[in-house]
């Protein structure tokens, strides 16, 4: 009679040999399900990422176009600024020349007036000398000291006129 315990040990239990197959299938199914969930879970953000990338690239392209357009605009503006600066420099030169010409006109009027004043003073000097010659010709009619004083004053006056003319020439050439 065989030992039942030994039989139990040696003979596989029909239930225990049948159990692993469904368990594996269940495990496989769970594994597949989890993988699917993981794939779907990853696929959603990846799809969003891909969409964002596409949008970013589109936006990037737009921005690049915009930058190129702005760069062209800036180049044009820089060229215009350079032209304006050149024009401004020319305007500055013209302004100086204009001011100089205007000033020469004003100075010319003044120089004429100054020269007329000097010429008038020379006239006065000559008249005074002529009068003095008359005085000298008729010196007996005048007090001698007053003749000397008059002569001195005429000489001083005429010297001043000459000095004024010298100053004028030194100042204005």
């Amino acid at each position, binding site marked *: 009679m065989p030992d039942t315990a030994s039989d139990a040990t040696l003979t596989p239990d029909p239930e225990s040999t049948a159990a692993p197959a469904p368990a594996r299938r269940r495990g496989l199914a769970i594994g597949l399900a*989890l993988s699917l969930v993981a794939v779907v879970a990853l696929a959603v953000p990846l799809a969003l990422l891909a969409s964002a990338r596409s949008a970013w690239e589109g936006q990037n392209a737009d921005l690049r176009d915009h930058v190129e357009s702005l760069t062209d605009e800036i180049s044009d503006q820089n060229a215009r*600024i350079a032209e304006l600066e050149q024009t*401004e420099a020319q305007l500055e030169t013209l302004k100086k020349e204009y001011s100089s010409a205007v000033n020469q006109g004003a100075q010319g009027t003044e120089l004429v007036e100054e020269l007329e004043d000097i010429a008038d003073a020379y006239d006065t000097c000559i008249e005074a000398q002529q009068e003095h010659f008359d005085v000298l010709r008729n010196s007996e009619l005048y007090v001698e000291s007053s003749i000397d004083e008059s002569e001195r004053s005429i000489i001083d006056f005429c010297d001043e006129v000459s000095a004024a003319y010298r100053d004028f020439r030194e100042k204005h050439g």
Partner: protein
Amino acid sequence: MAERRRLGVAALAVAAGVALAACAPLAPPPYATPTPVEATATASSADGFTDSERIALRVWAISCDAYRNGTAWMLDETHAVTNRHVVRDTTLIQLTDYQGREYRVASAEYSTEDDLALITIDGTFPEAATIGEEEPAIGDDLTVSGYALGGPLASVTGPYVDLRVNDLDPTGAEIYYLRLLAREGNSGSPVTDAAGDVVGVVFSSDGEKYAGAVTLPRLEAFLADDAERTEVDASC
């Protein structure tokens, strides 16, 4: 168990592959844009002359013993400001603007306290100065527009160095001390700030580096309606 791990690894590999595909190199970002050049300061009018230059007048005056050159500037359409020492004891004052237009002087009066004078012209002048509302701060760049040595019209700019005692009148009001070259003929020139507002009047210079100017408060006091002024006596 090992098969389950393999499946998990495979799923992760697929996911990683998809993720790496999404992380493919992107287009380069926009490149740096060029920096625009800075525009230089421009004149405030189309003709190239600044406001302070357009209101500046060339003064030529005859006193009893000398000819004088100076500068004046239009306060309003009939009044011009200059220095007392430009118009005092003169028998004739001639005014010419930057375009060569001449203006006849109807009368002139001066301050007894400061080196300032007010000229009234016949007719009207098309432009006028704007008087500043605030005094300049030390270090501010100020511009003097006038007819140095009798012209031509020119502007010079330099910093306001200090408020100091007037060496020509130690008991008088303090003056603005400016580091710029003003010369004979600049007397009476407007001193303008960066906004183009008149903040002083040049009246002295060392002929090299520094110039003195009547301050804004003293100018305002002189221009006040009730200010005491003396008429220029045109007789020698």
